[in-house]
């Protein structure tokens, strides 16, 4: 199995009150930006990645968001290019390049190939559609999001594999002279891992392409359902999906004692945590979701999509919110913090606690890639590095041993989609539902 470390590289000095008052990270004014503090943070996060390599992680994963202090990575290729030079063994996993948002697939093909060349073949190139708020920030038409994603992806594959020069006239992109003088180090192309939050369209697309799908902290029950959907599609296409086709990202924070971990792990709910990434109107821009997803939302008043319920979608911006009441809100968030731990959606504790909970989760969903998502909020350099150290030296060896015992083959152990399945053969299970039931989750 491959074990990765991921961080959003939060802007740690942003005060919490404006985030709560804004009801989201996206949209908090950049008047709070502090060049000196950010200079420290950007450098620290690069050093932290080097330390991950030193203590035994197989990969470091980064992403990008825009106009949002939740994540300081705005242009992930710039950071990845530095990592390519200052690390020497770890895979550099991008989860991912938001293709429709950057709107320039030729440049993306060049940047990513450069990273793969400098790192001598350590790039894992993930692709994303970009969160809803990204469409606003970059003025990317959300109604064409999936079309642009598909076209940009196909075009980049051509850039990486086809001999130039040639001319490209697509629907959304047009290039007179395609002949990039940088191509990936890995042949034919770098591995591509696709992160997501259980959109069926994306899961089926991954199964068709034989790309590993990475569930981003998704609830275990629905994750099992979606991985079965992937495996069914794979069987239809003549291959047996296995752990090498699946990855899972889980918020994990480790400290010397459970008490200390609990205290610092509250950073996961800083400002409202992931649910406060952006407000509903920015999370689901018009046309961004498929008709099926919208219908599901319309018919399930109690249900939600990306943390957005129909009720929230219906509310006016001025409705049912007292912006000054954020003290009360914090208390509510702390209750939520306990709940997400009971649900195993966040793991916080001493190495022993982390090992137990992580292996419980891995037993159910059997991923070949396991990614820990480092804590958000204002946690000191020292505490972050101690978490990395404990994870690397105490948690990882135990998780690796468990992975070996469970035969959790990663995509670099067994190539995704390489296990053939004869037509008409019943596929093997990809998840362990008995283990899920045994967890007795609320």
């Amino acid at each position, binding site marked *: 199995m491959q074990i990765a470390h991921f961080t959003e590289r939060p802007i740690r000095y942003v005060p919490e009150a404006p985030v709560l008052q804004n009801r989201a990270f996206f949209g908090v004014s950049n008047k709070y930006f502090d060049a000196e503090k950010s200079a420290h943070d950007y450098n620290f996060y690069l050093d932290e990645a080097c330390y991950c390599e030193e203590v035994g992680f197989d990969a470091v994963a980064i992403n990008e968001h825009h106009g949002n202090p939740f994540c300081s990575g705005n242009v992930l290729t710039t950071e990845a290019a530095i990592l390519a030079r200052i690390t020497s063994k770890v895979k550099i996993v991008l989860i991912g390049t938001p293709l429709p948002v950057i709107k320039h697939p030729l440049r993306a093909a060049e940047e990513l190939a450069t990273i793969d060349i400098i790192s001598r073949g350590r790039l894992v190139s993930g692709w994303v559609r970009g969160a809803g708020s990204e469409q*606003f920030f970059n*003025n990317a*038409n*959300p*109604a*064409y999001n999936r079309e642009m994603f598909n076209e940009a992806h196909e075009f980049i594959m051509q850039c990486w594999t086809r001999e130039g020069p040639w001319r490209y006239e697509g629907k959304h992109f047009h290039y007179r002279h395609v002949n990039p003088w940088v191509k990936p180090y890995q042949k034919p192309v770098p591995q591509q891992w696709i992160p997501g939050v259980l959109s069926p369209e994306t899961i089926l697309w991954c199964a068709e392409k034989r790309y590993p799908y990475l569930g981003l902290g998704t609830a275990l029950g629905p994750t099992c359902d979606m991985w079965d959907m992937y495996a069914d599609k794979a069987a239809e296409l003549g291959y047996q999906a296995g752990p090498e086709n699946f990855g899972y990202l889980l918020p994990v924070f480790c400290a010397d004692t459970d008490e200390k971990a609990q205290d610092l792990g509250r950073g996961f709910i800083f400002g409202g945590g992931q649910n406060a990434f952006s407000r*509903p*109107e*920015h999370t689901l*821009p*018009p*046309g961004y979701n498929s*008709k099926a997803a*919208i*219908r599901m*939302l*319309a*018919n399930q008043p109690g249900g939600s999509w990306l943390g957005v319920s*129909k009720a929230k*979608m*219906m*509310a*006016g*911006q*001025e*409705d049912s919110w007292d912006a000054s009441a954020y003290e009360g809100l914090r208390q509510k968030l702390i209750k939520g913090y306990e709940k997400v731990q009971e649900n195993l959606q966040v793991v916080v504790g001493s190495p022993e606690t982390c090992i137990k909970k992580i292996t419980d989760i891995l037993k159910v969903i059997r991923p070949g890639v396991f990614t820990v998502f480092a804590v958000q909020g204002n946690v000191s350099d020292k505490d972050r590095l101690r978490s990395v150290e404990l994870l690397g030296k105490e948690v990882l060896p135990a998780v690796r041993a468990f992975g070996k015992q469970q035969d959790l083959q990663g995509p670099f152990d067994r190539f995704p989609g390489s296990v053939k399945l004869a037509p008409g053969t019943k596929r093997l299970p990809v998840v362990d539902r008995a283990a899920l039931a045994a967890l007795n989750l609320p």
Partner: protein
Amino acid sequence: MATWKEETVKVAGSELVVVRGGSGKPLLVLHDEMGYTGWMGWNEELAKGRELIIPLQPGFGKSPRLDWAWRHRDIANFYQNMIRELNLGKVDLLGFSAGGYIAAEMAAANPEQLASLTLVGPMGIKPDKGEIYDMFACTINTYLRASVADQENEFKNIYGGEMSPEQFELFEDARAESARIGWEPYMFNPSLPALLRSAANVKLPTLLIRGSDDGIVPEDCIRKYKEALPQAQVVSIAGAGHRVEIEKKDEFVAAVKKILA
């Protein structure tokens, strides 16, 4: 009560759902960016002397989407072929908000096809002062509320209460299609003021209506339309927001009847 019916016609290479009601010379009505509101008081009044023909915009849930359409101009072309294929003759044209944008594109492309043009709170031209309210950066309810000065009376009857799943889906369809054709530049065509010269040249009878408290389309849009169409009459309806036909039905109907007469 005038009788109206919803029918599906095959025009310009596609199916189109059209609401038709009343009798008399045809009055083609283009609804706004959130979709057709249903037969209301103003429809009833205007249908006394005219046949109202209200196409439900392609992609807004009922009529299938036109995959080839990129811009409001393309929808305008589609409606112009609808006029030809349904043999409607020279029609009076009434457009609301983004429907006004489409109507203006039709007038720019072929003013000879029209008997008159009435634009109500029209989008389509970039204002020098102010901005067209961004319908995509807010929730459905926020936009609906921003579109009126007074949330009582007919507005409350239409938009009050719980939204059904079907209505929610229709609004989302409308928003998605409006984004598809109007995301960037946002709800205007930079060429439109120049293109409208054709409608100015033939002195197409034109009426521009705006609610004095319109929170969606700035007053400067009307000024720029007037600049492009000097023959236009401008009517400002006091105390109304963007949806004058809902909020000040009588004043609205009186102004429209005058140009139709």
